[in-house]
């Protein structure tokens, strides 16, 4: 078995599965219906150690790799995508930039709370007019050398975990100058509550209703000069590196969704009686379920292959893009087909596969659209695509 997990990874899978069944599954429908971000449940996931999994123990992390994180996210997504994305974004976009690009004093200051799930971090990259085209960033940060502060002005859009009661920091990208006629983009850490940093009311989203998503505005927002994260002018390259890892984690989330659809449909196809027999006796239904099993197997292979490469320190850019592209598109297909198998019940909000259907579309968009993944893969194949 190529993708056999360690005993400890299997033990974590069981703990997260039990936790998700007992602490998330009974409430997820109500959180979805009432748009509740369950901060106590998020703290409990922190106590399990989920937010610190891939970071060293000296910062309060678990000292594990991306593979282990994928196991946890996959299990959460089988029950609720909102909680899975809260962990994925908290780790991949909140803590990971601090760990990867932060100075030692920045790591010491922010990572322990982020690793423990006592605080959440967010990553402010997307803007109202700069999504996939992140180079079009308009948010500006000017250094007031006399005060030793950055003055930030601009807007960010669709930022996960940015307005929760425990959000501690948002790492934003901003134009800090020009170099060779091109805008120079840097990353700056903005603590929650900084004057001039405003969190806008939550979006009305199609899904992920228990996940926290806001637009952010910065009006003469001042943060200390030492809140620059990584090298000045390297912000663009930095977030590209962060996104490569995040794509594998999103793919793991999509894998959990497909596995959820498979399990739900296996059960329902045997239980649901139509024309005097279980609907699973019809090839039209049974073959859909068979296809779900194939999708799950393909997604699992791609996700864990990419995660293994990353954990082994080998190039994984193409594999991460392939995993994200396939698994998220398969998740959308899987949830649509599962909804079809559930018939009228599949269109009712409180049915699990209905929630998974609404929640899945964003997977093809967030942290790099399917089109961007195809672009990345094409370029990795040496094609002269622009």
């Amino acid at each position, binding site marked *: 078995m190529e993708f056999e997990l360690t*005993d400890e990874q299997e*033990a974590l899978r069981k*703990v997260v599965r039990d936790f998700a069944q007992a602490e998330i599954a009974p409430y997820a429908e109500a959180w979805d219906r009432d748009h509740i971000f369950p901060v106590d449940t998020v703290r409990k996931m922190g*106590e*399990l*150690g*989920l937010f610190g999994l891939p970071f060293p123990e000296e910062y309060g992390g*678990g000292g*594990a790799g991306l593979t282990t994180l994928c196991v946890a996210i996959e299990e959460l997504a089988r029950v609720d995508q909102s909680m899975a994305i809260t962990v994925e974004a908290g780790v991949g976009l909140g803590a990971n930039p601090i760990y990867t690009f932060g100075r030692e004093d920045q790591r010491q200051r922010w990572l322990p709370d982020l690793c423990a799930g006592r605080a959440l971090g967010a990553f402010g990259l997307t803007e109202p007019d700069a999504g996939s085209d992140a180079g079009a960033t308009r948010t500006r940060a000017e250094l007031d050398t006399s005060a030793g502060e950055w003055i930030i002005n601009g807007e960010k859009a669709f930022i996960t975990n940015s307005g929760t009661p425990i959000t501690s920091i948002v790492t934003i990208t901003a134009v800090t100058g020009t170099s060779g006629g091109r805008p120079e983009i840097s990353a700056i850490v903005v603590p929650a509550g900084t004057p001039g940093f405003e969190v806008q009311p939550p979006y009305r989203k199609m899904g992920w209703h228990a996940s926290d998503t806001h637009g952010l505005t910065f009006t003469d927002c001042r943060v200390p000069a030492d809140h620059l994260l990584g090298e000045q002018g390297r912000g663009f390259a930095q977030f590209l590196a962060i996104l490569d890892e995040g794509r594998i984690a999103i793919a793991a989330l999509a894998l959990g969704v497909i596995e959820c659809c498979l399990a739900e449909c296996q059960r329902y196809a045997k239980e649901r009686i139509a024309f005097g027999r279980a609907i699973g006796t019809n090839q039209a239904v049974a073959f859909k379920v068979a296809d779900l099993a194939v999708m799950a197997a393909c997604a699992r292979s791609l996700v864990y292959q990419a995660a293994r490469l990353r954990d082994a320190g080998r190039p994984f850019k193409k594999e991460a893009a392939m995993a994200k592209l396939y698994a998220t598109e398969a998740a959308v297909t899987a949830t649509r087909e599962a909804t079809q198998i559930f018939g009228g019940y599949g269109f009712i909000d409180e049915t699990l596969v209905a929630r998974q259907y609404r929640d899945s579309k964003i997977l093809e968009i967030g942290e790099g659209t399917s089109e961007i993944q195809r672009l990345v893969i094409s370029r990795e194949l040496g094609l002269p695509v622009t």
Partner: protein
Amino acid sequence: MNIVVCVKQIPDPAEPGSLDPGTKTLKRATKLILDESDSYGVEMALQLADAAGGGEVTLVSMAPNNEVSGLRTALAMGAAKAILISDPALAGSDALGTAKVLAAAIKRVEGADLILTATESSDGYTGTVPEQLAELLDLPSVTFAKHIEVSDGVVKVQRQTEAGYDDVECPLPAVVSVTAGVVEPRYPSFKGIMAAKSKPVDQLTIADLGIDPSQVGWAGAGQEIVSVEQAPARESGEIFEDDGTGAEKIVAFLENLKVI
């Protein structure tokens, strides 16, 4: 305070189990997990040791094939170490045989102040091992604890009864069986899972415990499973048309069940 918790490792109830038609017992060749009913005893022990300001929680388990998966779960929750007795001669042990083995292992734990068990396992359900253990260890036995406190060498227990609970006290050391309501078991954290890897599990055979093979397993079993039958299908309930006496009939029905 040092506490011993007896834990059973059982086939995962979420997987379809099967019976060996020859021995009429549950097949245990698969990977085993910690019996959920034992997770309450583990949590209670951890909380009592914590409240006492220190001490070790030691697990004792008897399982085939040197199975440690379930023990690792309890070690990940915070237990310090484990004793595992695994021996081909133990196959077919009845409740008393099991109690003999567990008692012999518990005697090896120095300075045990309290021995906790579940009230019964989730696979065998004999519910007799805790009392047999107490007898073999010559210790007082308190059963069905829904709340436990320890102070000054005395264990105070709220003992679950049909009507409510009894307050019971006894001197330590003692054997106490705990119900599922006694505490809320914690989830092992990832750090706990990693730490459990290196915690000691003392693997013993019955020879190590000085037990004669004729006393345990099929050879020593004083009981025999004669046959295994399907549980009868649930009978359909009674249906009454309300002719004006409905309320009285409901009251009579509930009184008959002794719930009012």
